[in-house]
């Protein structure tokens, strides 16, 4: 579905990504972890078509990515909702902007949006303004907004980074539930190793300066996933390995 072919990206003299190759299958859930500044956001923005590569190419469904595509949706760390629009209009904003929800289509889009909001536990909040919602609810709206585009690729840049630990766990499982019902590849950037292991089929570990892929870890846990699996040896092994890669083995020897 997504293929990065020896991709490099520089901002002036800063080499954000160097020679990154990665393939993500259709419907696959891939997490990306790595130290701050190792180019995770840059990688997502390359796939989203928001920035061009310096070298190499990004191919999505057989065609090279040169600009943002309608079948790719993005969720940012902050909810980035329009403060003037209510929840429903926020969720339908991308489709209205892309003129995919006009006239008769709009009614249909709004019906789908309401259904989606209901599954995200936001029924009854359709006509609230963003500032009337909690941080977790706002982020749910942002995720609904991305899902309503029915993307084949969902790019998430630390989507739960601004949430408290409880909300975060709850929303991880919710995300998995929604993903399972769809044919949608997810690329999920996070700073939480347990979160990455819990969610992903594979975890891409990146190393900084310049940003490269250090290793790709297969998480061999059965689905559906749950927090009980955190105690399992397979989970521990994966988490341990990722930690060792990120900290260069320092943590493994610490205690």
């Amino acid at each position, binding site marked *: 579905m997504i293929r990065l072919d020896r991709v490099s990206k520089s901002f002036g003299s800063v080499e954000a990504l160097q020679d990154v190759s990665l393939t993500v299958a259709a419907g696959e859930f891939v997490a990306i972890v790595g130290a701050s500044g190792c180019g995770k956001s840059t990688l997502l923005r390359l796939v*989203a078509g*928001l920035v061009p590569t310096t070298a190499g190419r990004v191919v999505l469904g057989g065609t090279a990515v040169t*600009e*943002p*595509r*309608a079948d*790719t*949706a*993005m969720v*940012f760390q*902050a909810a*980035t909702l*329009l*403060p*003037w629009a209510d929840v429903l209009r926020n969720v339908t*904003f*991308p489709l209205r*902007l*892309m003129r995919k929800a006009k006239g008769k289509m709009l009614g249909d889009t709004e019906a789908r949006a309401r259904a989606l909001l209901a599954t995200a536990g936001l029924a009854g909040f359709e006509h609230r*303004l963003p*500032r009337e919602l909690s941080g977790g609810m706002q982020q749910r709206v942002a995720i609904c907004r991305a899902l309503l585009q029915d993307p084949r690729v969902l790019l998430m840049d630390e989507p739960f980074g601004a949430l408290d630990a409880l909300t975060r766990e709850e929303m991880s499982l919710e995300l998995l539930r929604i993903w399972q019902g769809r044919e949608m590849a997810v690329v999920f950037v996070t700073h939480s190793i347990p979160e990455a292991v819990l969610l992903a089929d594979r975890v891409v570990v990146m190393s900084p300066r310049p940003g490269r892929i250090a290793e790709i870890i297969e998480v061999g846990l059965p689905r559906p996933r749950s927090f009980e699996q955190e105690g399992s040896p397979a989970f521990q092994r994966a988490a341990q390995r990722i930690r060792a890669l990120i900290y260069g083995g320092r943590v493994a020897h610490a205690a």
Partner: protein
Amino acid sequence: MRPSIRGALPSLIAVVALFAIWEGACRGFGIRPFILPMPSLIAAETWGAWPVVLNHTLATFGTVMWGFAASVLISLPLAMLIASSPAISAAIYPLLVITQSIPKVALAPILIVALGANELPRIIVTFLVAFFPLVVGTVAGLLATPPELIELGRACRAGKLQELLRIRLPFAVPFVFGGLKVAAALAVVGAVVAEFVGADAGLGYLIQTSMAFFRTPLAFGAVVLLAAMGIVLFQAVSIAERVLFPWSSGADRPVA
């Protein structure tokens, strides 16, 4: 309605108290009316001349509204132009600052000579006094749009025009209204400045002629009416904001 009345109560008490002290001081110290008239005398004289005063008020109000309208019509597109590119901004902003550094009182006679003794120079002076904060506020709003929102727009394949109309402009609304409130108050100032220099009607003209004949209370009446006009316009803008853009007058709006 209730809460707004309760909110207005302190300012009402303050104004009443001010007038009461003023009245008391004038009577107590025996200040002569042509130096500082007491409020009751101001009210009586103004009321006594009310058909004339009303005409002058309407004349000033007309100038204020035309100047304010011109400010809005010119400032908003100008702000969009400035916000659209750093190069345009670098070219236009210094010119705008120059127009602000020129004393409008000095400019008014020149304009009257150039354009004739009619309404136009007064409207232009009003515009020149009022438009600047509106431009600055609108530009600030257009540029304050969070980069994430811009990126969201780009990810949704929005073009530059769509980005401006669907994201930047709505985001700038609270800033625009901040500018509009200042512009409304300044438009009154601008109109009076213009009337001081060349006019045969208006509250500015009334102040000048009244003072020439030592009718100080009438001049004070005109000043009070000007203040009232400023307050009414300011409130009208605030109400328009609340009615048209309820989300704008909420929690995290910029300080106007």
